[in-house]
C-alpha cells in the first residue's frame, strides 16, 4: 500500500505569529517554521501502519517555499521512504483552491492508495484542503477522524460531528484527515537521521506537474485579502495574592463589573 502524507510547514505556534499588514500573508521570516504538529501526527498514522504491514510505502509531500526542505527531511528522518516538495514562485499566497488543485496533481501522479492529512493547519485553520483534493480527484474522503483503521481495500474510522460521533468507511483510494485524537509522532532517532540523507527528495514545479501558471489553474473565484488590521494586545489587569479572602473579592469584582 502506498500512503501519501501531506505536511504543511507553519509558523511555530510557540512564537508570536504575525501577518504582513500590507499583503495579509503570514510573515514567514518573523517566526520559526516548523512542521505543523497535526501533520506529524498524520505521518505517525502512516508509519504505524507501515510498522505493522510489510510492503507499505510512505511518501511525505509538502508545498511551500525553499525552507520546506527542512520539514521534509525531518519527515524522512522520522521514517518516510521518500519526499516530494512542490516549489514554484507562482504559488506564493496560494488559496485553498489552488493548493488543493496542486496537491491533487501530486497525488494523481504518485498513485497513492490513501492520502493522510491533518484536519486543519494551525495557521490558516481552514480544514478544507483534504476534502477539496478528494473532489478534484473524484475520490471519497473521510475527514476529522479520531481513529483510523486501514485494510487493503478500505479505510474506516470515527469522526466527531456537531452532535456526536459517527462511524464511516470508504473504499480505497481515498483521502483522509485526522484530528489530534490520534497519537503524537515519534521522534527521529539517530539511524533515521543518518539514512534520511540518502532518501529521495524530489522537487516539482507546476510545469513538472503538467499544470499551467498558477493564475490560470486557480478557480473562477479566487479569495483575496482586502485588509488586515492588528488588534491591540491585551494588557494585564490586577493580580492579587490569596490571603484567605480572594474568593469573596472575586465575587465582588464580578458583581461590581455586572459580570454576574
Amino acid at each position, binding site marked *: 500500500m502506498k500512503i501519501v502524507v501531506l505536511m504543511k510547514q507553519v509558523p511555530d505556534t510557540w512564537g508570536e505569529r504575525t501577518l504582513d499588514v500590507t499583503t495579509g500573508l503570514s510573515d514567514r521570516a518573523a517566526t520559526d517554521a516548523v512542521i505543523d504538529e497535526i501533520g506529524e501526527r498524520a505521518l505517525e498514522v502512516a508509519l504505524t501502519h507501515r510498522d505493522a504491514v510489510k510492503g507499505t510505502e510512505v511518501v511525505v509531500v509538502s508545498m511551500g517555499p525553499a525552507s520546506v526542505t527542512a520539514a521534509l527531511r525531518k519527515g524522512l528522518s522520522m521514517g518516510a521512504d521518500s519526499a516530494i516538495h512542490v516549489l514554484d514562485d507562482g504559488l506564493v499566497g496560494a488559496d485553498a483552491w489552488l493548493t488543493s488543485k496542486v496537491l491533487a496533481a501530486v497525488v494523481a501522479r504518485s498513485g497513492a492508495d490513501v492520502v493522510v492529512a491533518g484536519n486543519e493547519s494551525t495557521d490558516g485553520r481552514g480544514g478544507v484542503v483534504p476534502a477539496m483534493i478528494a*473532489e478534484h480527484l473524484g475520490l471519497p474522503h473521510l475527514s476529522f477522524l479520531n481513529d483510523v483503521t486501514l485494510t487493503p481495500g478500505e479505510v474506516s474510522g470515527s469522526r466527531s460531528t456537531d*452532535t456526536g460521533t*459517527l462511524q464511516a468507511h470508504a473504499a480505497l483510494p481515498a483521502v483522509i484527515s485526522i484530528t489530534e485524537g490520534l497519537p503524537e509522532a515519534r521522534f527521529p532517532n539517530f539511524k533515521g537521521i543518518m539514512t534520511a540523507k540518502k532518501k529521495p527528495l524530489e522537487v516539482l514545479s507546476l510545469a513538472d506537474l503538467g499544470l499551467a501558471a498558477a493564475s490560470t489553474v486557480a478557480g473562477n473565484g479566487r479569495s483575496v485579502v482586502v*485588509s488586515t488590521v492588528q488588534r491591540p494586545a491585551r494588557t494585564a489587569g490586577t493580580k492579587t495574592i490569596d490571603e484567605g479572602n480572594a*474568593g469573596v473579592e472575586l*465575587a465582588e469584582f464580578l458583581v461590581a463589573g455586572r459580570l454576574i
Partner: protein
Amino acid sequence: MTHVLALIDLSPSGEISNTAPGLLAAAAALGTPVAVTVTAPGVGSVLGGQLGALGAEIVFAAESEQLGSVLIAPQIEALAAAVAAYPSSAILVSNTSDGRDIAGRLAVRLNAGLVIDAVAVRQADDSSILATHSVFGGAYIVESTVTGGLAVVTVRPGAIDDRATPATATVATATISVDAARFAAIDSIADTAVESSRPELRDASIIVSGGRGLGSKENFVLVEQLADALGAAVGASRAAVDAGYIAQTAQVGQTGITVSPNLYIALGISGAIQHRAGMQTAKTIVAINKDADAPIFDVADFGIVGDVFKVVPQLIDAINARAK
C-alpha cells in the same frame, strides 16, 4: 436582489440547529435568503414555518433516501440543485467539520471561490461580498472577498448575533440522489450531544475553563460546580483533555474552539500561547493559578495567585449567598 443560500444544520432527528438564525441573518444581509434543508423523504416541508420565522424567504427542501448513509454527499447535491434553481451570489454553510467538507467539495465542483471561517459578512458598495476573519487567535482582523463569480462561505458558529426579519417562506421540495461511490459510507451515528442544561461553549456569555491544575477527573467537578453557579459553559485546556478530565469538545484554544465570551474564568490553566489563542478576545478574563508567574496573568483583568481548591469553593459560596 440576488439569492443567497444558507445550508441549515439539522440534528439527526431533524431539529433545526442554533446555527440557523445567524446563518439566515448573514444571508439576508447579502441578498434574498434561501434556506436549504436536507431531510429524509416526506418530512422536508414541515420546517417552512420555523425557517420563515428566522428570515428565510424561500425554503429549498431537499429530500434524500441516502441521508444518513452517504457522508456529506446529499448536502452537496442539494446545494448544487438549489443554486441551479435559484442563481445566487453566495452559499453559506457553518464552519463545522461537516460544513467545511461540504463547502470545500462544493467550491471545487462549482468552480466557486471559497471563504473560510467568516465571523461577519457584509456587502461592499460594488455589491461584492466582504467577509471578516479573526486570525491568529484574534490578534488580527482580516477582510477578504472573492473575485468574480459565486462565493462559498463558511460562517463561524456563534459569531453572528444579528437576526433577520421574519418572513413567510415559500417551500419548494426536490428529490436528491447521489453517486455513493465517490463518497464515504456511514456505518452508524451516535448522537452523544447529552441533554445538558448548560449553554453551548461556542455561544456562551460566561465560560469556566479548567486545566491540568485540577489534577484529576474527580477534582474537575469543581469547574462544573462553578459553571453551574454562574449559568456558564464548561471549557478546558488541551492538557486537561489529554489527561481525560473532560471530552475533547470542551477544548479551548489553537486546536480547539475559539471563544469570545463576556467573561472567561481560567482555573489551573497556565495560559500557554496556544490556549490564549482561543480565548484572548473574551471581554473580561479572570484567572486563578497558584504560580504567580503563569502567563495567563498577562491577559487576565483580574488574577488571583492562589489554590483553586480554596478560592473556588469560597467564590461559589459567595455567589450562592448573593443569589439568596
